């Protein structure tokens, strides 16, 4: 293999195939991908730093806008950390409502992904039909929270809006239709020959590699790694709800499709249990504006995988530090592995298969270069260094100084 046989082509940061700016540098030999470099950081928005300038309530709305698709995931994850520092016990009704919105969000995100995956392999019919059905869940979210995206449902110590019995009836009706449609999509995904042929064996990531690269969410579960924060470290109302963690052994994009469509069915079951067992009671508890000093880490199973937020408080009205690790950051290294020795034509669907959200990921980039020479030098040493350096380069004041001194002596 000679180096000159390899071709390096850049894909992005601005590229029609990418929905968000992200740089890929692909080393190709013919059609085969020999190496892949991913360059993050084109979409950095400085949200973590901006949170430090805002009080907790304002930061909540900012954090909610980290991602347009999993906005409830980020908002809940952040607010869980804040509530843990403040030592707040959430009312049970608020916990159930948070769980309900979380699952409705998962449904809309997975249906969206199914459409995008269909689009990336050229199956636009699937895109049109899944997105049409996704409108049902978007309408349900709008009904409960008021908006289709950025629901604004969380507040410190509870939720902002209640669910009326009419809403419950409406949600159950919508979920019934969605379940019917999802059964159909499971049939399509598992029986349609062209989907199976196109997705099988593409973007293979073995179980060992998942564990080594720490892939999260459906990407990991499709390789047989049974990891789900909802079950492993229950938050909100998940501890009181029965559900299965879906895994699959295909280890490829087809497996990720199967995991996602089957997870939809689990979401419907969780929503039904939530609505059936919805406890009565208040929606919020009073939390003081000043959060006591402390720090907390919060985990949340977003539709794309495990989301981690770290919040540190210094006892004031504003957080001292907020750190967000979006699920895509955990999964993006796996893409490199998945594309090894595959064809360039597989690139769009393999990247799309982790359901990437590059804007979410880009906030967490920090490049800490080790200082090459960190000697501490005094001002006097630096002055002498400057004089010596310029003397060596031909600018010398010694003669001039001597002339002036002689003149002064004469006077």
């Amino acid at each position, binding site marked *: 293999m000679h180096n000159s046989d390899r071709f390096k082509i850049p894909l992005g940061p601005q590229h029609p195939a990418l929905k968000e700016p992200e740089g890929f540098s692909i080393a190709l030999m013919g059609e085969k991908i020999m190496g892949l470099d991913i360059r993050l950081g084109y979409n950095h928005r400085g949200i973590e730093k901006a949170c430090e300038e805002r009080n907790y*309530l304002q930061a909540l709305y900012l954090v909610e806008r980290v991602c347009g698709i999993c906005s409830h995931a980020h908002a809940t994850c952040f607010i869980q950390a804040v509530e843990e520092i403040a030592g707040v016990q959430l009312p049970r009704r608020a916990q159930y409502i948070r769980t309900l919105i979380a699952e409705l969000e998962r449904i809309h995100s997975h249906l969206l992904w199914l459409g995008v995956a269909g689009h990336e392999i050229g199956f636009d019919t699937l895109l049109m039909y899944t997105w049409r059905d996704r409108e049902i869940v978007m309408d349900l979210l*709008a009904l409960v929270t*008021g908006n289709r995206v950025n629901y604004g449902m969380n507040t410190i110590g509870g939720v902002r809006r209640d669910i009326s019995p009419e809403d419950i009836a409406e949600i159950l009706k919508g979920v019934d239709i969605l379940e019917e449609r999802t059964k159909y999509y499971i049939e399509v995904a598992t029986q*349609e020959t062209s989907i199976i042929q196109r997705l099988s064996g593409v973007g293979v990531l073995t179980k060992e590699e998942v564990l080594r690269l720490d892939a999260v969410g459906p990407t990991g579960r499709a390789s047989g790694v049974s990891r789900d924060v909802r079950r492993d470290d229950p938050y909100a109302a998940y501890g009181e709800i029965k559900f299965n963690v879906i895994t699959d052994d295909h280890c490829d994009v087809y497996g990720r499709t199967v995991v996602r469509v089957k997870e939809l069915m689990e979401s419907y079951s969780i929503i039904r249990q939530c609505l059936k067992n919805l406890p009565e009671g208040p929606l919020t508890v009073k939390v003081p504006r000043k959060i006591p000093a402390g720090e907390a880490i919060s985990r949340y199973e977003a539709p794309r995988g495990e989301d981690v937020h770290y919040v540190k408080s210094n006892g004031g009205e504003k957080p001292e530090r907020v750190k967000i690790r979006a699920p895509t950051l955990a999964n993006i290294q796996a893409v490199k592995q998945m594309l090894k020795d595959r064809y360039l034509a597989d690139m769009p669907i393999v990247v799309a298969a982790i359901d990437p959200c590059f804007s979410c990921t880009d906030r967490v980039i920090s490049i800490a270069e080790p200082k090459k020479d960190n000697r501490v030098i005094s001002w006097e040493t630096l002055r002498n260094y400057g004089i010596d350096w310029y003397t060596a380069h031909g600018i010398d004041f010694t003669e001039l100084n001597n002339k002036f001194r002689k003149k002064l002596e004469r006077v």
Partner: protein
Amino acid sequence: MRVGKMLHEVLRSLFQKPATNLYPAEKLDMPKNFRGKLFFHPEKCIGCKLCMKDCPSDAITINKVGEKQFEAVFDLSKCLYCAQCVDSCPKKALEATKDVELAQLDIKKLKVVFRANPESSDKNPA
């Protein structure tokens, strides 16, 4: 395995009415909790400025214009429509309306002033 699993679905959809609406001829009702353009009741405001303190994007300003008289200035280009100010207000002087059609060609029109004395001036001076 079957080829053309979705064919049946596609053919059936041919005879259904479109899934989309003919906006702007046909307008949808906003959901009941919808957070649209803000409305201010000057007579209820006590000037505590909690709304200003909690606004994530500095979109709202409460000015004192007289004895127990306050006016509100909303910058709709900055507003996130989170309606936190509505929740923060202890006297329910703020209200989220269902007004969504806020696009403007003139940026000055996005600054909305609610006068303390509504009779003396119009609500949208621009």
